[in-house]
Protein backbone atom coordinates (compact mmCIF):
# COMPACT_ATOMS: atom_id res chain seq x y z
CA UNK A 1 0.00 0.00 0.00
CA UNK A 2 1.04 3.55 -0.66
CA UNK A 3 2.09 5.13 2.63
CA UNK A 4 1.74 8.76 3.64
CA UNK A 5 4.09 11.24 5.31
CA UNK A 6 2.70 14.50 6.66
CA UNK A 7 5.12 17.41 7.09
CA UNK A 8 3.74 20.53 8.73
CA UNK A 9 5.22 23.61 10.38
CA UNK A 10 3.07 22.70 13.38
CA UNK A 11 3.23 19.46 15.33
CA UNK A 12 -0.44 19.94 16.22
CA UNK A 13 -1.49 20.19 12.59
CA UNK A 14 0.66 17.19 11.68
CA UNK A 15 -0.63 14.98 14.51
CA UNK A 16 -4.24 16.11 14.21
CA UNK A 17 -4.24 15.44 10.48
CA UNK A 18 -2.72 12.01 11.04
CA UNK A 19 -5.49 11.19 13.50
CA UNK A 20 -8.20 12.47 11.13
CA UNK A 21 -6.80 10.53 8.17
CA UNK A 22 -6.28 7.34 10.18
CA UNK A 23 -9.95 7.31 11.09
CA UNK A 24 -10.72 6.82 7.41
CA UNK A 25 -8.10 4.31 6.46
CA UNK A 26 -8.79 0.67 5.72
CA UNK A 27 -6.11 -1.95 5.84
CA UNK A 28 -2.46 -1.39 6.47
CA UNK A 29 -1.82 2.15 5.30
CA UNK A 30 1.01 3.70 7.32
CA UNK A 31 0.71 7.41 8.08
CA UNK A 32 3.63 9.27 9.66
CA UNK A 33 3.56 12.86 10.88
CA UNK A 34 6.39 15.34 11.43
CA UNK A 35 5.80 18.88 12.62
CA UNK A 36 7.62 21.87 14.06
CA UNK A 37 11.26 22.50 14.88
CA UNK A 38 13.34 20.46 17.29
CA UNK A 39 12.54 23.09 19.93
CA UNK A 40 8.80 22.56 19.38
CA UNK A 41 8.31 25.90 17.64
CA UNK A 42 6.60 26.46 14.30
CA UNK A 43 8.98 25.48 11.53
CA UNK A 44 10.49 22.43 9.91
CA UNK A 45 13.14 20.02 11.07
CA UNK A 46 14.94 18.31 8.18
CA UNK A 47 16.51 15.73 10.50
CA UNK A 48 13.09 14.61 11.68
CA UNK A 49 11.82 14.52 8.09
CA UNK A 50 14.83 12.45 7.10
CA UNK A 51 14.25 9.94 9.90
CA UNK A 52 10.58 9.67 9.03
CA UNK A 53 11.35 9.09 5.35
CA UNK A 54 13.92 6.45 6.27
CA UNK A 55 11.65 4.64 8.71
CA UNK A 56 8.42 4.41 6.73
CA UNK A 57 7.89 1.54 4.28
CA UNK A 58 8.29 2.90 0.76
CA UNK A 59 8.04 -0.34 -1.21
CA UNK A 60 4.63 0.44 -2.73
CA UNK A 61 5.26 4.19 -2.83
CA UNK A 62 5.23 7.12 -0.46
CA UNK A 63 3.21 10.31 -0.83
CA UNK A 64 4.45 13.33 1.11
CA UNK A 65 2.16 16.22 1.96
CA UNK A 66 3.73 19.50 3.11
CA UNK A 67 1.84 22.54 4.36
CA UNK A 68 3.82 25.60 3.20
CA UNK A 69 6.76 26.53 0.99
CA UNK A 70 9.54 26.13 3.52
CA UNK A 71 8.28 22.67 4.44
CA UNK A 72 8.39 21.85 0.73
CA UNK A 73 11.98 23.12 0.59
CA UNK A 74 13.03 20.99 3.54
CA UNK A 75 11.34 17.93 2.07
CA UNK A 76 12.96 18.43 -1.33
CA UNK A 77 16.35 18.76 0.31
CA UNK A 78 15.89 15.49 2.18
CA UNK A 79 14.70 13.79 -1.02
CA UNK A 80 17.80 14.98 -2.87
CA UNK A 81 19.93 13.12 -0.33
CA UNK A 82 18.32 9.77 -1.18
CA UNK A 83 19.53 7.13 -3.60
CA UNK A 84 17.79 7.38 -6.97
CA UNK A 85 16.12 4.04 -6.42
CA UNK A 86 14.51 5.13 -3.15
CA UNK A 87 13.82 8.61 -4.47
CA UNK A 88 11.82 7.16 -7.35
CA UNK A 89 9.33 5.68 -4.88
CA UNK A 90 8.43 9.05 -3.40
CA UNK A 91 6.25 11.93 -4.60
CA UNK A 92 5.66 15.28 -2.95
CA UNK A 93 2.02 16.09 -3.70
CA UNK A 94 0.64 19.40 -4.99
CA UNK A 95 -2.32 18.89 -2.70
CA UNK A 96 -4.04 20.59 0.22
CA UNK A 97 -2.61 19.31 3.48
CA UNK A 98 -5.61 18.17 5.52
CA UNK A 99 -8.00 17.35 2.69
CA UNK A 100 -5.27 15.59 0.72
CA UNK A 101 -4.27 13.47 3.70
CA UNK A 102 -7.82 12.22 4.28
CA UNK A 103 -8.45 11.31 0.65
CA UNK A 104 -5.00 9.76 0.26
CA UNK A 105 -5.64 7.58 3.33
CA UNK A 106 -8.98 6.42 1.93
CA UNK A 107 -7.67 5.71 -1.55
CA UNK A 108 -4.50 3.99 -0.43
CA UNK A 109 -6.64 1.77 1.80
CA UNK A 110 -8.61 0.84 -1.30
CA UNK A 111 -5.38 -0.34 -2.93
CA UNK A 112 -5.18 2.53 -5.41
CA UNK A 113 -1.85 3.24 -7.05
CA UNK A 114 0.34 6.25 -6.37
CA UNK A 115 -0.76 7.83 -9.67
CA UNK A 116 -4.44 7.28 -8.95
CA UNK A 117 -4.13 8.81 -5.49
CA UNK A 118 -2.13 11.78 -6.75
CA UNK A 119 -4.61 12.49 -9.50
CA UNK A 120 -7.39 12.64 -6.87
CA UNK A 121 -5.62 14.80 -4.33
CA UNK A 122 -4.00 17.12 -6.87
CA UNK A 123 -7.32 17.91 -8.53
CA UNK A 124 -8.81 21.37 -8.00
CA UNK A 125 -12.09 19.64 -7.06
CA UNK A 126 -10.63 18.68 -3.69
CA UNK A 127 -10.93 22.18 -2.26
CA UNK A 128 -14.68 22.44 -2.94
CA UNK A 129 -16.52 22.26 0.36
CA UNK A 130 -20.22 22.62 -0.51
Amino acid at each position, binding site marked *: MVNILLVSHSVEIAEGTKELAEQMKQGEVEIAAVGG*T*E*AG*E*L*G*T*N*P*DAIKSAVNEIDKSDGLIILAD*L*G*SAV*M*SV*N*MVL*DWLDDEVRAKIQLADAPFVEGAVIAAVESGMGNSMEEILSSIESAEIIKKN
Partner: protein
Amino acid sequence: MTEKSKEILDKLADVIIENKKHLTKLDSAIGDGDHGINMARGFKEVKEKINGNNYETNQELLKSVAMTLISTVGGASGPLYGTAFLYISKVIPDADFTIDSLIEIGQSAVDGIQKRGKAEQGEKTMLDAIIPAVDALKESKENGDDLEEALQKCKVKAEEGMKATIPMQATKGRASYLGERSIGHQDPGATSSYLMIKTIVDELYKYKD
Protein backbone atom coordinates in the same frame (compact mmCIF):
# COMPACT_ATOMS: atom_id res chain seq x y z
CA MET B 1 44.75 25.23 8.33
CA THR B 2 41.15 25.71 9.36
CA GLU B 3 41.84 28.19 12.17
CA LYS B 4 41.39 31.24 9.97
CA SER B 5 38.11 29.96 8.53
CA LYS B 6 36.91 29.05 12.01
CA GLU B 7 37.64 32.56 13.24
CA ILE B 8 35.77 34.06 10.31
CA LEU B 9 32.79 31.80 10.89
CA ASP B 10 32.82 32.51 14.61
CA LYS B 11 32.73 36.23 13.94
CA LEU B 12 30.03 35.74 11.32
CA ALA B 13 27.94 33.88 13.88
CA ASP B 14 28.42 36.70 16.40
CA VAL B 15 27.23 39.29 13.89
CA ILE B 16 24.12 37.29 13.07
CA ILE B 17 23.37 36.76 16.76
CA GLU B 18 23.85 40.49 17.43
CA ASN B 19 21.39 41.26 14.64
CA LYS B 20 18.72 38.85 15.86
CA LYS B 21 16.21 41.58 16.69
CA HIS B 22 16.87 43.55 13.53
CA LEU B 23 16.36 40.54 11.27
CA THR B 24 13.25 39.46 13.14
CA LYS B 25 11.78 42.92 12.86
CA LEU B 26 12.32 42.94 9.10
CA ASP B 27 10.66 39.51 8.85
CA SER B 28 7.70 40.71 10.93
CA ALA B 29 6.85 43.23 8.24
CA ILE B 30 6.72 40.81 5.31
CA GLY B 31 6.93 37.32 6.80
CA ASP B 32 6.32 35.39 9.99
CA GLY B 33 8.74 37.34 12.15
CA ASP B 34 11.25 34.62 12.85
CA HIS B 35 14.23 35.18 10.56
CA GLY B 36 16.42 36.59 13.35
CA ILE B 37 15.29 33.91 15.76
CA ASN B 38 15.95 31.19 13.19
CA MET B 39 19.37 32.52 12.19
CA ALA B 40 20.53 33.26 15.74
CA ARG B 41 19.49 29.78 16.84
CA GLY B 42 21.34 28.23 13.92
CA PHE B 43 24.53 30.23 14.36
CA LYS B 44 24.61 29.73 18.11
CA GLU B 45 24.73 26.01 17.34
CA VAL B 46 27.36 26.64 14.67
CA LYS B 47 29.58 28.40 17.23
CA GLU B 48 29.29 25.52 19.67
CA LYS B 49 29.84 22.96 16.97
CA ILE B 50 32.94 24.45 15.36
CA ASN B 51 34.56 25.50 18.61
CA GLY B 52 34.03 22.05 20.09
CA ASN B 53 35.54 20.16 17.17
CA ASN B 54 38.73 19.88 15.18
CA TYR B 55 38.59 19.83 11.42
CA GLU B 56 41.31 18.63 9.11
CA THR B 57 40.13 20.66 6.14
CA ASN B 58 37.99 23.68 5.35
CA GLN B 59 35.76 21.28 3.46
CA GLU B 60 35.01 19.35 6.67
CA LEU B 61 34.52 22.55 8.60
CA LEU B 62 32.07 24.03 6.09
CA LYS B 63 30.16 20.78 5.79
CA SER B 64 29.74 20.76 9.53
CA VAL B 65 28.44 24.35 9.45
CA ALA B 66 26.00 23.41 6.68
CA MET B 67 24.58 20.40 8.48
CA THR B 68 24.23 22.36 11.72
CA LEU B 69 22.27 25.11 9.99
CA ILE B 70 20.06 22.58 8.21
CA SER B 71 19.28 20.84 11.49
CA THR B 72 18.62 23.86 13.64
CA VAL B 73 17.41 26.91 11.71
CA GLY B 74 13.81 25.73 11.22
CA GLY B 75 12.77 28.25 8.53
CA ALA B 76 13.29 28.44 4.77
CA SER B 77 16.67 30.01 5.45
CA GLY B 78 17.82 26.68 6.97
CA PRO B 79 17.75 24.61 3.79
CA LEU B 80 18.79 27.68 1.75
CA TYR B 81 21.89 28.72 3.71
CA GLY B 82 22.53 25.08 4.62
CA THR B 83 22.70 24.10 0.96
CA ALA B 84 24.80 27.19 0.21
CA PHE B 85 27.40 26.14 2.80
CA LEU B 86 27.21 22.55 1.59
CA TYR B 87 27.99 23.66 -1.96
CA ILE B 88 30.76 25.94 -0.67
CA SER B 89 32.28 23.01 1.20
CA LYS B 90 32.76 21.23 -2.11
CA VAL B 91 34.95 23.99 -3.60
CA ILE B 92 36.61 25.73 -0.67
CA PRO B 93 40.41 25.42 -0.74
CA ASP B 94 42.66 25.06 2.26
CA ALA B 95 45.07 27.60 0.71
CA ASP B 96 44.69 31.36 1.24
CA PHE B 97 41.74 32.86 -0.59
CA THR B 98 42.28 34.46 -3.97
CA ILE B 99 39.82 36.34 -6.15
CA ASP B 100 39.40 33.13 -8.11
CA SER B 101 38.61 31.00 -5.11
CA LEU B 102 36.30 33.67 -3.71
CA ILE B 103 34.38 33.73 -6.99
CA GLU B 104 34.06 29.97 -6.87
CA ILE B 105 32.87 30.11 -3.27
CA GLY B 106 30.34 32.84 -4.00
CA GLN B 107 29.07 31.12 -7.13
CA SER B 108 28.63 27.87 -5.19
CA ALA B 109 26.56 29.69 -2.58
CA VAL B 110 24.34 31.08 -5.33
CA ASP B 111 24.04 27.66 -6.96
CA GLY B 112 23.10 26.02 -3.68
CA ILE B 113 20.47 28.61 -2.88
CA GLN B 114 19.00 28.36 -6.37
CA LYS B 115 18.99 24.58 -6.24
CA ARG B 116 16.80 24.76 -3.13
CA GLY B 117 14.73 27.87 -3.71
CA LYS B 118 14.51 28.14 -7.51
CA ALA B 119 14.61 31.94 -7.31
CA GLU B 120 16.25 34.38 -9.71
CA GLN B 121 17.72 37.79 -8.99
CA GLY B 122 14.99 40.40 -8.50
CA GLU B 123 12.54 38.21 -6.55
CA LYS B 124 13.36 39.96 -3.25
CA THR B 125 15.40 37.24 -1.59
CA MET B 126 18.85 36.68 -0.16
CA LEU B 127 20.06 36.20 -3.74
CA ASP B 128 19.62 39.93 -4.34
CA ALA B 129 22.49 40.64 -1.95
CA ILE B 130 24.65 37.67 -2.90
CA ILE B 131 24.50 37.70 -6.70
CA PRO B 132 25.68 41.35 -7.02
CA ALA B 133 28.52 40.57 -4.60
CA VAL B 134 29.66 37.62 -6.71
CA ASP B 135 29.25 39.67 -9.89
CA ALA B 136 31.49 42.35 -8.35
CA LEU B 137 34.21 39.78 -7.75
CA LYS B 138 33.93 38.58 -11.33
CA GLU B 139 34.22 42.15 -12.60
CA SER B 140 37.22 42.79 -10.40
CA LYS B 141 38.89 39.75 -11.86
CA GLU B 142 38.27 41.08 -15.38
CA ASN B 143 39.49 44.54 -14.37
CA GLY B 144 42.55 43.12 -12.71
CA ASP B 145 41.71 44.64 -9.31
CA ASP B 146 43.80 43.48 -6.39
CA LEU B 147 42.16 41.39 -3.65
CA GLU B 148 41.74 44.37 -1.33
CA GLU B 149 39.94 46.40 -3.97
CA ALA B 150 37.85 43.40 -5.02
CA LEU B 151 36.71 42.72 -1.46
CA GLN B 152 35.79 46.34 -0.94
CA LYS B 153 33.66 46.46 -4.09
CA CYS B 154 32.07 43.12 -3.23
CA LYS B 155 30.90 44.45 0.14
CA VAL B 156 29.54 47.66 -1.40
CA LYS B 157 27.59 45.72 -4.02
CA ALA B 158 26.14 43.38 -1.40
CA GLU B 159 24.91 46.37 0.57
CA GLU B 160 23.46 48.00 -2.55
CA GLY B 161 21.79 44.71 -3.43
CA MET B 162 20.28 44.44 0.04
CA LYS B 163 18.89 47.97 -0.21
CA ALA B 164 17.64 47.32 -3.74
CA THR B 165 15.21 44.75 -2.29
CA ILE B 166 13.21 47.58 -0.71
CA PRO B 167 11.32 48.59 -3.87
CA MET B 168 11.02 45.00 -5.11
CA GLN B 169 7.85 42.91 -5.03
CA ALA B 170 8.48 39.48 -3.54
CA THR B 171 7.63 36.53 -5.77
CA LYS B 172 9.23 33.76 -3.70
CA GLY B 173 8.86 32.73 -0.06
CA ARG B 174 6.31 33.95 2.48
CA ALA B 175 6.71 37.61 1.49
CA SER B 176 5.19 36.68 -1.88
CA TYR B 177 1.85 36.08 -0.11
CA LEU B 178 1.74 39.85 0.35
CA GLY B 179 1.91 40.59 -3.37
CA GLU B 180 2.34 44.33 -3.95
CA ARG B 181 2.30 44.98 -0.23
CA SER B 182 5.75 43.44 0.03
CA ILE B 183 7.05 46.55 -1.76
CA GLY B 184 8.72 49.11 0.50
CA HIS B 185 10.33 46.69 2.93
CA GLN B 186 13.90 45.41 3.01
CA ASP B 187 14.13 41.64 2.66
CA PRO B 188 15.30 39.92 5.86
CA GLY B 189 17.23 37.21 3.98
CA ALA B 190 19.04 39.77 1.82
CA THR B 191 19.93 41.54 5.05
CA SER B 192 21.39 38.46 6.73
CA SER B 193 23.29 37.71 3.51
CA TYR B 194 24.73 41.22 3.44
CA LEU B 195 25.75 40.92 7.08
CA MET B 196 27.55 37.68 6.34
CA ILE B 197 29.34 39.05 3.28
CA LYS B 198 30.33 42.21 5.15
CA THR B 199 31.73 40.17 8.02
CA ILE B 200 33.67 37.85 5.75
CA VAL B 201 35.15 40.81 3.87
CA ASP B 202 36.06 42.65 7.08
CA GLU B 203 37.66 39.53 8.50
CA LEU B 204 39.62 38.81 5.33
CA TYR B 205 40.85 42.40 5.48
CA LYS B 206 42.39 41.71 8.86
CA TYR B 207 44.53 38.99 7.35
CA LYS B 208 45.30 40.78 4.15
CA ASP B 209 48.96 41.23 4.89
